[in-house]
């Protein structure tokens, strides 16, 4: 009897210990953020079908796989399994990057009735004119970079906090903008993975790039710019 209770207590303690460990490491799990608009609200620039697939399938999958990779990483660190830790890095970058990038993206676009497409006012508008001459010139450059990107990736309007200027950058796959420079802050990202436009625009990526500006949410980009350049 005593032995049994000893065994039980040991198991209980072990269980408690591992819970405590988990709690102290606070393994956070991520979940899909809600969109602040309906799937169909960005038509005809981006179809409701694409928005739904993009959000519920693609973004959700990045989050699911990111959570899985983090859990595996947590285990591997605890076990001291360094080769697994190293092996997991690409899955973390890919899926974590996918989560970060898409979370930004949903805020970069807005329905027209919520000022989507309205040209930037405030300090960002001024900075664009200073850095690129005009909004049209900026758009032209971003579209050229986006169209020329081979394979999958993103095209960004970023703020270089160190040099205090606006930059246009592209990243491959789901690499976040910081992979191009630690002082780069994303203001605006346009997803040029085929899943972002294929059902509607097929192979004609330039048409997608032309039309997305009708729903770009400059208010958000301006907000980030003002906060980061303060």
């Amino acid at each position, binding site marked *: 009897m005593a032995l049994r209770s000893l065994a039980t207590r040991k198991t209980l303690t072990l269980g408690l210990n591992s819970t405590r460990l988990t709690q102290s490491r606070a393994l956070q799990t991520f979940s899909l953020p809600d969109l602040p608009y309906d799937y169909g609200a960005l038509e005809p620039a981006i179809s409701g079908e694409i928005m739904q697939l993009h959000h519920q399938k693609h973004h959700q999958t990045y989050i699911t796989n990111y959570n899985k990779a983090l859990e595996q990483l947590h285990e591997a660190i605890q076990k001291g399994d360094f080769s697994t830790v190293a092996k997991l890095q690409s899955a973390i970058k890919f899926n974590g990057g996918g989560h970060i990038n898409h979370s930004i993206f949903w805020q970069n676009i807005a329905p027209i009735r919520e000022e989507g497409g309205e040209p930037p006012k405030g300090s960002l508008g001024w900075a664009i004119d200073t850095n690129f001459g005009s909004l049209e010139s900026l758009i032209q450059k971003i579209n050229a970079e986006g169209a020329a990107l081979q*394979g999958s990736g993103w095209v960004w309007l970023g703020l270089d906090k160190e040099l205090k200027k606006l930059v246009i950058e592209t990243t*491959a796959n789901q690499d976040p903008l910081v992979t191009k420079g630690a002082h780069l802050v994303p203001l605006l990202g346009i997803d040029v993975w*085929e*899943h972002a436009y*294929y059902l509607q625009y097929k192979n004609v990526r330039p048409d997608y790039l032309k039309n997305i500006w009708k729903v770009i949410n400059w208010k958000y980009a301006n907000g980030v710019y003002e906060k980061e350049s303060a």
Partner: protein
Amino acid sequence: MAAAASMVASSSFTFPSQGLRLPTRSHPCMKAQRRILRKDASNVIAATYELKPPPYPLNALEPHMSQETLEYHWGKHHRTYVKNLNKQVLGTDLEGLSLEDIISVTYNRGDILPAFNSAAQAWNHDFFWESMRPGGGGKPSGDLLDLIKRDFGSFERFTEEFKSAAATQFGSGWAWLAYKANRLGVENAVNPWSSENDKKLVIVKSPNAVNPLVWDYFPLLTIDVWEHAYYIDFQNRRADYISVFMEKLVSWETVNARLEKAKARAAEREMEEERRKKEEEWKPTDGDEDDEGLEMYVDSDDDSEAE
């Protein structure tokens, strides 16, 4: 303009910077290329690359791969790669080269030149259409099946590994079954003691336009996992697309034929290696090792060097 054009036509020694679109940093590989041209200077003709249709009608793979997909994938994407390739090659030293030669030159050991994407994607898509057939799928047989069992344990394990490679190629790219003759598992590394066991089947995946030709492997089978390959039919469900490809589309006959060719070429190269090694033994030692080697390859019938 006319003068420049005639200069390109008459001379195979045009400097890359003269009115051509290749960046100057391509000079090291342009040197290698000029040597290739020197070998058959009489064959410098302006060849254009053509869009070959798949070996079956565009609706022949239904319902597994829709006609609509073929119309866009072949009719638009593949067509554009070929169009761009012709544009990028016109008036440059790449003109007249075979597609495979353009691929290896413009791969430039990983420091990829602009024409690579068009050339490699043109080649990849030809290879992809031919890797499928209506009523495909099932299992391979004969030598191919034996090799698969030898190198993967079983056909089921092979299928698992191939599907996994295709599913885990992040972003755009391809998954391949390839025959690796005497190349080691490291790029550009040749096994000097190659034996039967080194002629292995391998599964590899590659990003964007890269293909196993650049690692000197013999590709046998490929699946396109760029989203445009499956989005119309499967949307985000890449895994389903891959399963359908394996179960209903793979042309094992084609893969088999490619394996036979790969084995034959590997044997040819082995004999060529043997011959070269023997000639090395008979050659008098000279100063400049590197140049000697290259010249021997180009002017192999020139007996004036041998003593």
